[in-house]
């Protein structure tokens, strides 16, 4: 029923999931905005993270440790894409698609060849769960903050700066003796590590991992990044710090998912959601390009 109280009832859950998508979007931010490449591995590595986390939990592993294991496995998927791109000279987008494609089988193997594995929160110790939304929001915020602080620190180090230079102007990076191939591999690795960790959080939140849970993750991540940038450009006319930028990605994830909850509440057919998202992301990705054209160049 379309009642306001119904919406209020559903929104907190939307915020919790939005936080998780926002964390995932931080991983995509590293490849999309810092390295300046589109990495399509994420649809696969998100699922990998969910699968690894749930299987670990079923095996009795501590849920935080399970997330860390997912993070590391996610890094490996990113490294695979990075190596295919840099060593075999295959375009980044294609390298990502190939790894994502192959991960489907690997994810099935991780889940013992079943398309869906669940960890009942009554029987297993989970870090977050949709059964306790306030707690999920709290944990989501804490994990977001940890990510933002660590990423801020990392991209201020010598290595992090070298990765930024590689994404900004690879010619300059080369001339400064930066091994741009390695920097890309590291960037892909960290990005997918974070995406997989977010997949693990999602798995715990919903209590199961599904072979298709990562489908469209790249688009949701881009939506979060772009919404965050729109918010930033609206509030800070004169640019802002890297902290703010990273925070905006999380906020973008929350806004995106809250919008989805509202759309569902309005009884719009959920099958049309993907089309809506695709159109909105296309428009926002196009805006900067169209502005440049108008300016005469």
């Amino acid at each position, binding site marked *: 029923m379309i009642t306001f109280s119904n919406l209020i009832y559903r929104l907190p859950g939307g915020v919790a999931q939005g936080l998780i998508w926002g964390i995932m979007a931080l991983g995509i931010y590293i490849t999309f905005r810092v390295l300046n490449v589109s990495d399509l591995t994420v649809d696969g590595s998100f699922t990998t993270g969910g699968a690894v986390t749930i299987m670990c939990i079923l095996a009795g592993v501590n849920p935080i440790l399970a997330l860390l294991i997912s993070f590391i496995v996610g890094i490996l998927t990113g490294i695979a894409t990075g190596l295919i791109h840099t060593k075999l000279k295959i375009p980044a987008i294609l390298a990502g698609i190939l790894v994502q494609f192959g991960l489907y089988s690997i994810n099935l193997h991780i889940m013992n060849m079943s398309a869906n594995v669940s960890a009942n929160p009554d029987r297993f110790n989970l870090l977050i769960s949709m059964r306790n939304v306030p707690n999920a929001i709290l944990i989501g915020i804490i994990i977001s903050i940890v990510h933002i602080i660590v990423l801020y620190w990392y991209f201020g180090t010598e290595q992090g700066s070298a990765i930024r230079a590689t994404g900004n102007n690879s*010619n300059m990076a080369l001339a*400064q003796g930066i091994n741009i191939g390695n920097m890309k591999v590291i960037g892909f690795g960290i990005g997918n590590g974070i995406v997989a960790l977010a997949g693990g959080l999602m798995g715990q939140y919903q209590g199961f991992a599904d072979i298709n849970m990562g489908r469209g993750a790249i688009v949701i991540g881009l939506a979060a990044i772009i919404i965050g940038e729109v918010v930033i450009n609206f509030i800070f006319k004169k640019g802002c710090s890297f902290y703010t930028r990273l925070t905006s990605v999380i906020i973008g994830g929350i806004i995106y998912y809250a919008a989805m909850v509202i759309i569902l509440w309005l009884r719009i057919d959920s099958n049309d959601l993907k089309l809506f998202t695709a159109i909105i992301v296309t428009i926002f990705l196009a805006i900067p390009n169209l502005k440049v054209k108008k300016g005469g160049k």
Partner: protein
Amino acid sequence: MLKIDNISKTFNPGTINQKVALSNLSLQLEEGDFVTVIGSNGAGKSTMLNAISGSWFVDEGKIFVDDIDVTLMSEYQRARYIGRVFQDPLMGTAADMWIEENLALASRRGKSRGLRVGISRKEREIYYEKLKALNLGLEERLTTKVGLLSGGQRQALTLLMATIQKPKLLLLDEHTAALDPSTAKKVLDLTDQLVNENNLTTLMITHNMQDAIDHGNRLIMMNDGIIILDVRGEEKASLTKEYLIKKFNELSNGTLDNDALLLSK
């Protein structure tokens, strides 16, 4: 300091676009040599510099920098020894990063980059002083994004970046060609200043013959992938444009008219 030993490079071999860009070229530079390079379009000047900096591997021959064989080193590895400034002011700096961040990246040229902090406070003071010496007011804008600077300011910054950690070899490929004449002069003066201060071994390509005559202690002229003239010392100091044009027509069998060589004048 630099020894190029019989290098050759053919682009697109075996195709209809086959182009011999360098043929058995040899060149030796002593420490502190400042060599200007002239030649018509397509003579192979940039190709020679790219061969040294490692954009690709040469087909034949060897390249040594300070007795180190760099022939098979990748581009980023050679950067440890080589500072570069390009014709396009956009190419040498990271536009979305701050001035001080660009300088910090350049200060670590060829060093391993770990998890230490990207810029220390002490470095900032050094950058402030070095930028002040450029006289462009950039020292007050350490945290300005490089993309906001003018072409001349960016070239000056790129020059500083190329020399801030003394390179064994400085390669300049028409680094003033994209600038207006007065800015070009400033950047050239700055080039002299930095080269002299640090006693840098330098190769500078230019299309401006007067600049080629006025700067450096040695001049080479290229045509069709080989060096056709090499003058140094006293003889170089007494060169004139007219003489160079005459010489060029003689040595290249007069295949090109004066304008082709002069181009910028």
